[in-house]
């Protein structure tokens, strides 16, 4: 899956967020702003998003890496790195 483009990766992430929080206005999220707070994603929602991402991308995120997922770009960077590693 290393060939996934960044755009495709972003689409997958947004898809997973919308499955949990269909009302989320991901496009108007200011870059660099913590996405969970802005989109009102609680801990339970967050775990469900990670489960969905793991299903789709095969990347399982250990808790010790959660701090890298604070911004949407951070999350996408992280997935990209894990997929190409």
């Amino acid at each position, binding site marked *: 899956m290393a060939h996934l483009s960044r755009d495709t990766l972003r689409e997958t992430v947004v898809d997973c967020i*919308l*499955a949990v*929080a*269909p*009302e*989320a206005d991901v496009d108007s999220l200011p870059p660099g702003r*913590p996405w*969970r*707070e802005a989109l*009102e*994603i*609680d*801990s*339970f*929602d967050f*775990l*469900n998003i990670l489960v969905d991402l793991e299903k789709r991308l095969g990347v399982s995120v*250990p*808790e*010790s890496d*959660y*701090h890298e997922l604070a911004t949407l770009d951070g999350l996408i960077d992280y997935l990209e790195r894990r997929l190409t590693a």
Partner: protein
Amino acid sequence: MEILRKSRREARETVLDDYPSACAGFSWDEARTWLDGLPGEGGLNIAHEAVDRHATGEAGERTAIRWLGKAGARREIRYRELAELSARFANVLGELGVARGAGVFLLAGRIPELYLAVLGALKHGAVVTPLFSAFGPEPIATRMNLGEGRVLVTTTSLYRRKVAAIRDRLESLEHVLVVRDDDQALPEGTRELGPLLDAASPEYAIPATDPEQPALLHFTSGTTGTPKGALHVHQAVVAHHATARFALDLRAGDVFWCTADPGWVTGTSYGIIAPLSLGATLVVDEAEFDAERWYRILEEEAVSVWYTAPTAVRMMMKGGSERARSRAYPSLRFIASVGEPLNPQAVHWGVEAFGLPIHDNWWQTETGGIMIANFACMDIRPGAMGKPLPGIEAAVLRHLPDGGVARVDHHDEEGELALRVGWPSMFRTYLHEEARYRRCFVDGWYLTGDLARRDPEGYFWFVGRADDMIKSAGHLIGPFEVESALMEHPAVAEVGVIGKPDPVIGEIVKAFVALKPGHAPDEALRRELLGFARQRLGPAVAPKEIEIQASLPRTRSGKIMRRLLKARELGLPEGDTSTLETSR
């Protein structure tokens, strides 16, 4: 599961060192002497006990609140400073002409202003309601109107997201004071709190306060109808103080971390009032749950007493104990948990991860403080709620045909958990719903709505709720509030909401929906309904799952049968369906 034995040495070093003698020697009158009271014959005010009495001399230089910001900021607020800041807020209320007894609501994350506003409003004699910031506009509007909120303290971003659109429905609201958390222009109809505080005097003499004067209004959900506003009075602080000593082993000088948000009763009684009343240092973390961050806080802030919740413990358990064990917690002395029954595995996991068992305790919004607990000095029977606190009489009751109650006849027999009335933090009414309040009491007992049993050794065990209430992540959610929000969607004909068991958060809110003719039960509509509910209710209350069905089971009188929906969801026998409406 195996009993966790406490050694005599462990027991000797705790505040409550011998349970039977502590109970025998205790009286609430004695507990009142542990507090100062207002100078002269001024009565009793929570904010005086929590802040002002610790604010002078050397004691005033101790840290009251150690605030940890989401992005790494830190702020230490000393008792002296907290007394001044809360005095400034009380003066702001005075200058705005806010009367004593008026409703002051707070809607904010765990920011320092939330704490100084709660304490300042208590000084002023206002009735304080912190709301959970993950509530959506509907729960906010319902509660602010029920509680006749005249003042709202919030942030600019929360105001824009959740309040601006419902502002004209908030009938009693006069003043909105905002903390700026973005760089946009101040929303219309709001005033910035910071400059008002700066301009106000840092001195405020708390007016005489009757111990029975209303202080806090906490909302709790009902199975039917609107949420209930449980009203607490200033002398609740007698119970906050005493129960924190007994059930949390909390003392002056402790570094105490209560992970609950003040939007729920735990986060106010034990996340603000109790630890301050003891002169402890309160750790406040602005960020949401993050296991790694929590381990770091426990270690680096040298937390000595930690009060958390089963959902958080189970989330940490998912990650394994290795991460917890990679740090050291030499200062940590006691761990407690509340919100829902702590499973035996979690009690033991505490030992594995932190070297300390986790002590479950039980109480409700209505009780204002901890009522039943596993004490530091007492053997733990994992899975049990523990034993009643000194000063608290608890019993398992059965209901009699004549409307009365009696104690169950045998050990381990299930019945409704009840408390003998008369402790200081007992709620004094459901605001504007005296009849609903009175229905909670029979023959001098407060009926909790929880089913329990008591074992031969006197430990109480939680069995379940006597009603349809949902316990999600430790918070009580009323199905009716969720159903009402979904009913507003034009495609929805009927809704039934249940708690679906979940291994991590206890129960998740699940909604079953039947559609009006002309709407297709497809994925697009399901998602639309999910988003619709989240926007109105916020993630803390909105359903996490929605299932569309052709029709929902109703009783002959037309009530949707939540219990049957739940039985079907769980694959359980459906029981007596004789009152069920025949299928359409």
